[in-house]
């Protein structure tokens, strides 16, 4: 069990309205990712759910029960922090056992649960070590272990992978996804990295300045962003926005086209541009182009295409994949 409902939740720090008002439904067993740029209120929202911050107005319901005024420990949630927040003077075993010890469980039961969690997370050989003797990924797993043993109704992750190097981040991403499939427990995950959001989420909540811009599955957000913000935020490299005559010809204020939806050619096309920077990634190449009458455009092409600084390249946008936005920045549906 682990459905979370936010009803008109708002948070004010002094004069600053960090979260004006949010309504959100998180279903049992879902993997929900809060994503947005720095300072968009995603971490604050998570801390409100955890109970580490008090809401200024509104209600938070967990499994239909109002927990707005409940203490963090009473909400039955477990949290994994960005810095892992392991207790440095305790062994891995004691770190994982700590919440159980606080719940005054039987010694034998504690030992069994810790052993189980350690097996799931491949920590069995490290139980007697201190956190300072572990690598970043192992510390992360200990933090997750400490969360698992409590058998919470939902897990809260606050940018858990941001302190890891790129390779380890990829591995941990898989491990967390795998854990979600095993446990089938609700997970709420905060990140500023849209790759993490796209790869892990059942449902993404895009936040901007404390407001929900759009809620949907990763592909929904990719295929039909509701407004300019979501369109620009989801997808890498970012979507190209084109204004002026081209957009007007499509009956829109702004036209958006993703770098991967531009057909490239060396001799003919609608737009003509000069390559400023070519980023060769091997399989793909990202071209940053200066296009006459349009401006900066990013295009994605096959690694074999072979374009370099100073080359002239022609582009044709795929009209079926074109996004159109009105003067308020909202998407126009065909």
């Amino acid at each position, binding site marked *: 069990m682990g459905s979370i409902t936010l009803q008109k939740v708002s948070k004010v720090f002094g004069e600053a309205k960090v979260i004006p008002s949010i309504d959100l439904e998180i279903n049992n067993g879902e993997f929900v990712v809060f994503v947005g740029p720095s300072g968009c209120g995603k971490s604050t929202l998570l801390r409100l759910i955890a109970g580490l911050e008090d809401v200024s107005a509104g209600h938070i319901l967990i499994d239909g029960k109002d927990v707005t005024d409940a203490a*963090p420990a009473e909400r039955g949630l*477990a949290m994994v922090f960005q810095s892992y927040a392991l*207790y*440095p*003077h305790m062994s891995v075993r004691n770190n994982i056992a700590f919440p159980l010890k606080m719940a005054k469980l039987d010694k034998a039961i504690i030992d069994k649960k810790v052993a189980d969690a350690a097996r799931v997370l491949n920590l069995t050989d490290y139980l007697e070590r201190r956190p300072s003797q572990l690598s970043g990924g192992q510390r992360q797993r200990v933090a997750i272990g400490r969360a698992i043993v409590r058998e919470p109704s939902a897990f809260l992750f606050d940018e858990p992978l941001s302190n890891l190097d790129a390779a380890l981040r990829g591995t941990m991403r898989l491990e967390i996804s795998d854990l979600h499939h095993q446990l089938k427990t609700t997970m709420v995950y905060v990140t500023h990295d849209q790759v993490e959001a796209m790869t892990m989420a059942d449902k993404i909540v895009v936040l901007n300045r404390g407001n929900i811009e759009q809620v949907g599955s990763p592909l929904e957000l990719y295929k039909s962003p509701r407004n300019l913000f979501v369109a620009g935020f989801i997808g890498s490299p970012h979507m190209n926005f084109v204004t002026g005559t081209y957009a007007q010809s499509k009956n829109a204020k702004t036209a958006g086209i993703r770098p991967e939806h531009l057909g490239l050619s060396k001799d003919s096309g609608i737009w003509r541009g000069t390559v400023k920077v070519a980023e060769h990634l091997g399989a793909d190449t990202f071209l940053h182009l200066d296009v006459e009458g349009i401006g900066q455009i990013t295009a994605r092409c096959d690694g074999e295409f072979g374009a370099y600084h100073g080359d002239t390249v022609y582009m044709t946008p795929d009209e079926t994949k074109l996004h159109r936005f009105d003067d308020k920045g909202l998407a126009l549906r065909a």
Partner: protein
Amino acid sequence: MATQNTKTLARLMMAPSVLLLLVWMIVPLAMTLWFSFQNYNLLDPSNVSFTGLFNYQFFYTDPAFFQSIWNTLVIVGGVLLITVIGGIAIALLLDQPIFGQGIVRILIISPFFVMPPVAALVWKNMIMNPSYGVFADISKFFGLRPIDWFAQYPLFSIVIIVAWQWLPFATLILLTALQSLDGEQKEAAEMDGANFLNRFIYLVVPHLARSITVVILIQTIFLLGVYAEILVTTNGGPGYASTNLAFLIYRTALLGYDVGGASAGGIIAVVLANIVAFFLMRAVGKNLDR
């Protein structure tokens, strides 16, 4: 080769200060040791002779000797107990966001800036005096007989005065340690269901262990030689009730004019300090290496 040169140069550059420190320490120690085997009394300075271990025997058989050692340990232990526990308590309070934090912190530190004799005189004449001290006024307000602190509880009075002076030191060190405690750890413990007491026991105290060790070690060094507070309040009395080793040495040297006997006492004090340091390092020293 370069490192070899750097090392040699570093040693050469450090040599003068190391040498100075060594001389500074060795010369007085050697002189004290030398005098401790001499029959040297300032009332008869022309008649100096070697006496072997007589000075040590004289000091050892002094009826005040064992009491002064006991008093020294009581002062050290009592002050450490009050300052460490009180320091943690005050540091916890000061760590809370309060109105006028800056001024409160300065007020808390201020006893440390008062010179020991001045502090002791203020306590003697304005706070603990049985006829017009603050404590006497409080006793009278409740209809109780005022306590004559320095007559009835001389050693305890000294402990209170010295503890008052050292409390800011302990508080400051422990406060900075408290402030370096990771906020996410506290929040994690909160989510793990630890109440305030459990967070204190399992999170705060282990985090403070190293700072508490530093407080204990530094204070012990100074507390073994408490002197000014005793001189201006009880003068070691009544009898020898508040005489510690440092004060006993002072009595022997400057009231008894017995340089030889006082030197023997000084050597005994050095030995005592080393015994205390040995047990202290065994008890809390492991907190320092991590």
